[in-house]
């Protein structure tokens, strides 16, 4: 009887558990002046960018870990993209690429990181940031009164791009039950789609975060690269 009550209680709690985005209100695109429903219109355009990158998390056994390095992103004229993560001392951790049709390739990865689940996780992060392998058109506009949410369906779950005053402020990947990845974006240019200067990525299920800080100096965005 006790176990029956316990299981019933769990089921009741599950049925009442808050699902993410249940309070969002769908709105017509016309209410969102300046926001397009085409994925292509948000694709960031840049020559190259260099970020300081810090990865922090906990292993399943609760042991903390931390890895830092430099993340180098480059877009080529033929439509290909590369994302290279390297140590401060220069050694490459991984080198990912996408061709002009968004076909993904691992050009290089160190043995310690060569795990299919990790590669898939990182690949999805970069594809969400760079608007790759998304449907051409959004499936809907929503609002919570504070942010505008642009939703794209994915093969598993969906992604919301969050806008405030027409500037992208965040990216959230979720399924109907819970959020999986939450990205906070700060320092995005307002005039054209660009990469944010501060990006914080929280992997809620996997239990790790990635913090990216753009490296710039007073001369140019790409002064540290050539």
């Amino acid at each position, binding site marked *: 009887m006790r176990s029956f009550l316990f299981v019933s209680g769990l089921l009741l709690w599950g049925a009442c558990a808050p699902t993410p985005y249940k309070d969002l209100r769908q709105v017509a695109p016309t209410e969102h002046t300046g926001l397009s429903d085409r994925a292509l219109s948000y694709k960031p355009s840049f020559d*190259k960018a*260099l970020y*300081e990158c*810090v990865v922090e998390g906990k292993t399943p056994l609760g042991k903390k870990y*931390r890895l*830092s390095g*430099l993340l*180098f992103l*480059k877009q080529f004229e033929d439509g290909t993209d*590369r994302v*290279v993560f*390297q*140590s*401060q*001392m*220069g*050694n*490459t951790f991984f*080198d990912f690429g996408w061709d002009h049709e968004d076909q993904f390739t691992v*050009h*290089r990865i*160190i*043995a*310690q990181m060569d795990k299919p689940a990790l590669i898939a996780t990182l690949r999805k992060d970069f594809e969400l940031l760079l608007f790759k392998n998304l449907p051409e058109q959004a499936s809907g506009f929503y609002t919570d009164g504070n942010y505008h949410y642009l939703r794209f369906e994915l093969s598993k779950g969906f992604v919301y791009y969050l806008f405030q005053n027409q500037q992208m402020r965040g990216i959230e990947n979720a399924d109907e039950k819970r959020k999986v990845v939450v990205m906070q974006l700060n320092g995005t240019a307002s005039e054209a789609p660009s990469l944010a200067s501060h990006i914080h990525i929280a992997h809620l299920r996997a239990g790790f975060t990635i913090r990216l800080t753009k*490296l*710039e*100096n007073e001369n140019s965005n790409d*002064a*540290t*690269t*050539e």
Partner: protein
Amino acid sequence: MKALRISTLIVLFISLWQFSTLAQPAGFNTLSDVHGLKTALATNAHRTKDISSDFAQTKHMKLLNDKVHSKGKFFYKQADKVRIEYTSPYQYLLVMSGGMIMVKENGKLSKVNTRNSQTMQAINRIMLDCMRGTVFENKDFSVKASHSAQQYLLTLTPISNSVKGLFKHIEVYINKSDLQVSKLVMTEQGGDYTEMNFSNKKLNTSISDALFSVR
């Protein structure tokens, strides 16, 4: 038939000669007195109590046709203390002392488990070997010595499996005038390479132990 064999041998000989020439950087020839160099490096290392210098680092990404630059300060103190301090475009401090490696970035200090960081371990071992004149004793690499008019070049090729995945080879350039390392070039298996150029070098200035204590 005999003429064909001779021409084949000539082509083979020319190919091998070209290959051996290409494998050696321009202006460098194989060093015959390796033992003499080993002795000179060991004597010099004994005299070098400490070193402070600037460095400029450039990562060359072959396929991306691009480079990433950084710079900082380098310190060494006999017998096993190294401080590498990146000052631009990022702040990153790495201190090696008494077999420990400590890293400080954005005000956060962490001790590196060298068992899990083979790259750092290998690079720091190389750094120490260069300073102590013990490059030839590093069991992870085979060493080939060559020289030009101004420099010695030690080419380190990995032989241990733990280092093979990290580097294709490492080149250590040493000035003939003062037997000090002027440049390190670490080439990865994919062909990308990182160059560290040392400048403004000062020797035996009694640098403080505090530089190698991170808090």
